[in-house]
């Protein structure tokens, strides 16, 4: 793992989806066994580029996610490293039994990509807004679950998934350009959180779109004299227990920040670790037992309390409970 932190809250001009697509173009070139199955959403995440460059390795299954998941399993059984994409809601809820049995239980090398995670589904609204996708996949034994945060991380973790792991995984894919967190060439290890800022009063553990907000919260807290450690916990399962416990000891309290239901996501995964190994006060920023709504992402972040200010408030509360 080696990374450079940018984290200046600036938009990445590159679409995040191209982190996936560019990694796949290289992977497909190097390795004929890397394949991509899509569900009539190729134009949404630019996998038409894969189809054009590697038609023998790219398959459109149409609007039929359950079959697509099974096809990916069958391809994997013939030796393929099968990536399969749909919107996160359909890649999880719609095809979950297939992901669970045909892929997970069957120990087949299928890498599920779920785009438009949580509030980034924005104007597609509640029906397309997965707040439970990672939670579902975390129920599959040995499934790797990832919430990637930017172009560079998506690119790096796509390659890691292809090369380092041969069973079922689920990775969230932010579709459009988002805040740049990492410098080009950064690399990550599945299951290892990234400490972005050191601190001593509280640890903010975030992932995906919340990483940028966690960094913003760290700055707001610093202005008030509060020292916050910030972690990008891109892998939710297996979760980095060592880093969580070390941070709990260092800072004495934890705030989780996720674009997902806290009851079944990152917050609960961290809480499990704390309860087993030594609890400290913890607050959870994320979706609190609600369905999605329609609207621009920035508005939804306010509606669902996913802002830097929400993280700041949670941090102060956690500190007050020490």
């Amino acid at each position, binding site marked *: 793992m080696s990374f450079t932190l940018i984290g200046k809250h600036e938009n990445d001009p590159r679409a995040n989806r191209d982190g996936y697509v560019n990694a796949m173009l290289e992977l497909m070139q190097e390795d004929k066994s890397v394949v991509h199955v899509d569900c009539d959403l190729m134009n949404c995440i630019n996998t038409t580029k894969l189809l054009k460059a590697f038609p023998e390795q790219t*398959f459109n299954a149409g609007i039929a996610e359950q079959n697509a998941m099974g*096809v990916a399993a069958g391809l994997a059984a*013939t030796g*393929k490293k099968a990536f399969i994409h749909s919107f996160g809601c359909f890649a999880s809820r719609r095809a979950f039994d297939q992901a669970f049995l045909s892929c997970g239980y069957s*120990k087949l090398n299928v890498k599920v990509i779920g785009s438009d995670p949580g509030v980034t589904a924005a104007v597609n609204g509640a029906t397309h807004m997965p707040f439970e996708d990672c939670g579902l996949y975390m129920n599959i034994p040995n499934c790797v679950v990832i919430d990637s945060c930017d172009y560079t991380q998506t690119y790096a973790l796509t390659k890691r998934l292809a090369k380092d792991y041969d069973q079922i995984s689920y990775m969230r894919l932010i579709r459009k350009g988002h805040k740049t967190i990492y410098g080009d060439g950064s690399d990550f290890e599945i299951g290892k959180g990234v400490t972005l800022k050191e601190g001593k009063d509280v640890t903010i553990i975030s992932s995906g779109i919340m990483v940028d907000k966690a960094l913003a919260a760290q700055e707001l807290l610093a202005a008030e004299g509060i020292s916050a450690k910030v972690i990008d916990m891109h892998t939710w399962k297996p979760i980095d227990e060592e880093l969580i416990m070390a941070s709990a000891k260092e800072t004495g309290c934890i705030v989780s920040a996720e674009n997902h239901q806290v009851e079944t996501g990152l917050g609960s995964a961290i809480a499990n670790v704390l309860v087993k190994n030594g609890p400290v006060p913890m607050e959870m920023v994320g979706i609190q037992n609600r369905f999605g709504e329609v609207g621009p992402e920035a508005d939804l972040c306010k509606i669902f309390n996913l802002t830097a200010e929400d993280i700041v408030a949670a941090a102060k509360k956690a500190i007050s409970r020490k």
Partner: protein
Amino acid sequence: MQKAEKMQELRVFAQEIRMETLKIIHSLGKGHVGGAMGMADAMAVVYGAYMKIDPKNPRWEDRDWFILSKGHAGPVAYATLGLMGFYPVEEAYTLNRPGTNFPSHTDRTKTIGVDLTTGSLGQGMSEAVGAALGNKVDGRDSHVFVAIGDGEADEGQIWEAAEFAAHYKLDHLICLVDNNGRQLDGAVADVMGHAKGLAAKFDAFGWHVIHVTDGNDVEKIYDAIAEAYTVTGKPTAIVLDTVKGKGATFAESSGAHSSEPTAEQWDEAFAYAEKQMAEIKAAK
């Protein structure tokens, strides 16, 4: 070998599969007898006449594939694979015991020779389609057989997979439809009928369709698969009108989905199976 001789061999093999299927289920005392026994003839033909396999190298990459999408018929697959030499068939007499390699539904992670895991109905069909696609893009001349039930065809996933297979012209995919007319809650026609029938349905999905009205006749199954092997540009569905529980005296008349016979009923079933075997051999 002359065809007549081969058919005789397959009839004997089918009856051996029946007897072993009964023994496997008898080892536990109960199970999905109906859906397993009705498939014995198709299993005998597929494995006895067509499947390109190597029991010593079960994951041989140039092999043919068989996926029992109606995974609850597991015992008939375990009987067949054992008799084909993948393992001593007696190992399957541990059916459904804790730690067994022979669970109720076929499982690629447990049983040698099982190509893909099934049990949640409809899923084996998509898995088979994926395997056929993988073989096709890699240029392998491998056939993929998938067996589904007519009850299983209630599942929407079957039809998603059917459209995919036709779209990608998977002509090495052969779907055997165990059209026994029964599902768990009763007659298929009463529970969830297939309107114009499964042959018409596969035809509408762009498949080559062969309807075998005696789906327990090994020669007719043999001829149907021979025809399927000549088809190019589309997958083939072979609709086999079978008798659920065929050859199991306690299940055949009722068409029961699962059975837990008495000791006397088991004795009767085994005696009948032995008698059938003698008759098949005598007809030589």
